[in-house]
């Protein structure tokens, strides 16, 4: 008998396939409301679900943004049916008490139309009583493309409760700077690794990854993985020679059993005043510090920092007097910059090649770079190194692009470069975003073939102007209202997405929206496991041995 009542109240085993309700009201600005089919249980309908409204001429691809319990008669709410009164409960369900579901149409396609390039925004709404159905596999691949169709598409996961892959368009993805957000422990690093794998596999851009926590290069910890198989493969393991490992702390890399391809050292003369300004927050520099630094620079040019740090104690005041700077301001600057002296990667003179030249060489050959920080996990080191390297690489890219614009020779065209930075709010906060190189890159978009992949847990800390320029945003769970607001900066009709964002699972779920997807969609992210390694072209140990044997047989004969 209990089964019978469950059936009547919308348990899954009586669901009419597909149809989940009909459109009852709506507006273009506020979205559409649907009355839930009474034999559907409200608990099966989740915010973020991908549904299709079958209009008369168009199909509206929509996302569920909100659910409301309603009753026609307030008396029912005052005197609810008694606990055992299943019959009355069933009778009321769907007639006097009903569920309305708020839908946000995100994309409109004529019946049978395919997305060619630019998706069409929604310009009208479906008529009364249009059927709302669950999206099926065909709909998903029609909207998001499929890896089989084209190498533009990269499978990022599946929609909620479905098994069809949702793909992002990598061509469009690398056209802008992008962001990956989510609070700690929601799988940002996994998402980032997934996206990077896509970019590397489909050769859409060269990546430079500032890997603060040593997560991308060579095996990384799996969160909550327990013992045993708690490590996952890094990019170097998956893509071998296509990825070069640079390390700021070679000793730490070796301790972890990794042989970096290059060690990175930075000479004092490579640090420009702009690099120090970018550290304003981290070093708590006064506003006058920049002026003092420029005074030193005016006198000593490239040697300014070496010169400044070489004086000590009371000589600093004398030094200030010599160059005409304010004594207390300069000694404060001196005192604070002294911290840089402690970094083991800082050297007076470079012995080997300049790290930036080596990196550019790799980038020109299309080899991706992961820069590991080893034990140098202080924010100061990260900010400093990322700034210096990016600024100089960007300079080179500007030169290359100018050259290409002048010659218009396709051979001169630089390879698109994507720079991945973590803790992005430290680089792009409103105070420094206008001055640091990352702010520039984020704002100038792809003019010089360099874009950013911003990874951050605190998007509210990022300058609004930068946030609104990010093309595609992939967002795991965020709770803080300010962060949610920040991520949705520059998104029209953000209200619906807000509730979706706050109701994501804390693991393996993300909202993807922006330039690289035709419509916002909540996905269950792809598993980062053996199957994924295989899809990325990685071979198991046996296969690798076999392949090597075959190759050696081909060269040397049996």
């Amino acid at each position, binding site marked *: 008998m209990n089964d*019978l*009542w469950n*059936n*009547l109240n919308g348990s899954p085993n009586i669901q009419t396939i597909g149809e989940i309700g009909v459109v009852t009201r709506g507006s273009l600005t506020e979205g559409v409301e649907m009355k839930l089919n*009474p034999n559907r249980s409200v608990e099966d309908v989740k915010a973020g679900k991908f549904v299709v409204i079958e209009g008369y001429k168009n199909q509206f691809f929509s996302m569920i943004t909100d659910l409301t319990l309603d009753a*026609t*008669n307030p*008396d*029912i709410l005052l*005197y609810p*049916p008694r606990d055992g*009164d299943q*019959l*009355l409960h*069933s*009778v*009321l369900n*769907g*007639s*006097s008490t009903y569920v309305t579901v708020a839908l946000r149409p995100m994309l409109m396609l004529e019946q049978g139309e395919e997305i060619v390039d630019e998706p069409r925004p929604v310009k009208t709404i479906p008529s009364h009583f249009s059927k709302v159905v669950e999206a099926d596999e065909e709909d998903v691949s029609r909207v998001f493309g499929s890896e089989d169709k084209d190498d533009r598409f990269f499978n990022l996961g599946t929609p909620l409760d479905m098994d069809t892959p949702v793909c992002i368009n990598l061509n469009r993805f690398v056209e802008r700077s992008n962001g990956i957000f989510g609070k700690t422990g929601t799988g940002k690093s996994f998402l980032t690794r997934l996206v990077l794998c896509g970019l590397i596999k489909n050769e859409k851009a060269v990546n430079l990854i500032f890997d603060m926590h040593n997560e991308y290069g060579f095996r990384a910890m799996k969160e909550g993985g327990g013992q045993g198989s708690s490590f996952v493969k890094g990019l170097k393991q998956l893509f071998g020679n296509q990825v070069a490992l640079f390390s700021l702390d070679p000793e730490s890399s070796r301790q972890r059993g990794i042989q970096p391809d290059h060690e990175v050292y930075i000479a004092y003369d490579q640090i420009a005043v702009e690099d120090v300004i970018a550290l304003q927050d981290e070093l708590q520099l006064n506003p006058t510090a920049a002026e003092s630094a420029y005074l030193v620079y005016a006198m000593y040019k490239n040697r300014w920092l070496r010169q400044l740090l070489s004086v000590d104690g009371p000589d600093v005041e004398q030094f200030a007097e010599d160059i005409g700077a304010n004594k207390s301001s300069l000694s404060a600057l001196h005192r604070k910059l002294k911290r840089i002296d402690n970094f083991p990667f800082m050297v007076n003179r470079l012995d080997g090649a300049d790290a930036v030249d080596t990196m550019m060489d790799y980038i020109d050959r299309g080899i991706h770079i992961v820069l590991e920080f080893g034990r140098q996990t202080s924010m100061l080191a990260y900010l400093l190194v990322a700034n210096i390297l990016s600024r100089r690489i960007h300079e080179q890219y500007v030169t290359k692009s100018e050259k290409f614009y002048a010659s218009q020779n396709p051979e001169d065209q630089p390879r698109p470069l994507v720079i991945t930075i973590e803790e992005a709010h430290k680089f792009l906060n409103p105070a420094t975003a206008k001055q640091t190189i990352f702010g520039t890159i984020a704002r100038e978009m792809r003019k010089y073939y360099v874009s950013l992949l911003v990874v951050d847990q605190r998007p509210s800390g990022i300058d609004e102007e930068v946030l609104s320029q990010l093309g595609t945003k992939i967002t795991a769970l965020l709770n803080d209202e300010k962060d949610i607001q920040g991520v949705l900066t520059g998104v029209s009709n953000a209200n619906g997405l807000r509730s979706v964002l706050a109701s994501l699972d804390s693991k393996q779920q993300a909202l993807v929206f922006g330039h690289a997807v035709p419509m916002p969609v909540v996905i269950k992210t792809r598993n980062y496991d053996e199957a994924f390694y295989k899809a990325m072209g990685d071979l198991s140990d046996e296969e690798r041995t076999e392949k090597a044997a075959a190759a050696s047989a081909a060269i040397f004969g049996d």
Partner: protein
Amino acid sequence: MSLAQLDLSEFIGEIVESSTSQFTSESRELNGAPPFGSFVKTLGALPVYGLVFNVCTHSIEPNRRATAYGLTEQQLREEQPQIFELLKTEFEAVIIGYGDDKGPQQVLPPQPPGIHSFVFPCSESEIKALTNSGDFLRSILCGNGNRLPADDLIIASVRNAWAARAFDMPYLVGIGKDLCRLIRDDYDRLSSIMRRVSQ
């Protein structure tokens, strides 16, 4: 079951008064009227379907009333058998549809059933056809002014319709939903009716 297949000797009443919306029949046997809320039909050019809403037994003489004797029915039948000949049972039915070549229609008939037509109980399949939607409830609620004991008639007729479907719960829920709309979300009334139907 077609009309031709009906055994005419199984009639339960004969129409003595007829109109478009209801008819009155005299029961074939004293106290032998069909139960309140049961579905009946008449024979004629077009069969007419009705729902019994009132049963009464009284003297055959309009101006005379039966008198109390202080005896049980058994004793009365032995001592005064003639008085039962002076009584008759009548039942009234509200018309809820008629039949044409497509089967029962939930619409009032073009002509009222003929006087002296025989009345038969409806078969199970006819009850199902007449009650497949909540439209018959509308005849009860909207027809005949306030003469019908609407709530009780709904309860009795829905129970019959439900029984014809072997007490199928989804059917009862569907009818409940129709009723809910018909009585304009009168929650108290709905809950009272549904409770009594399912008792």
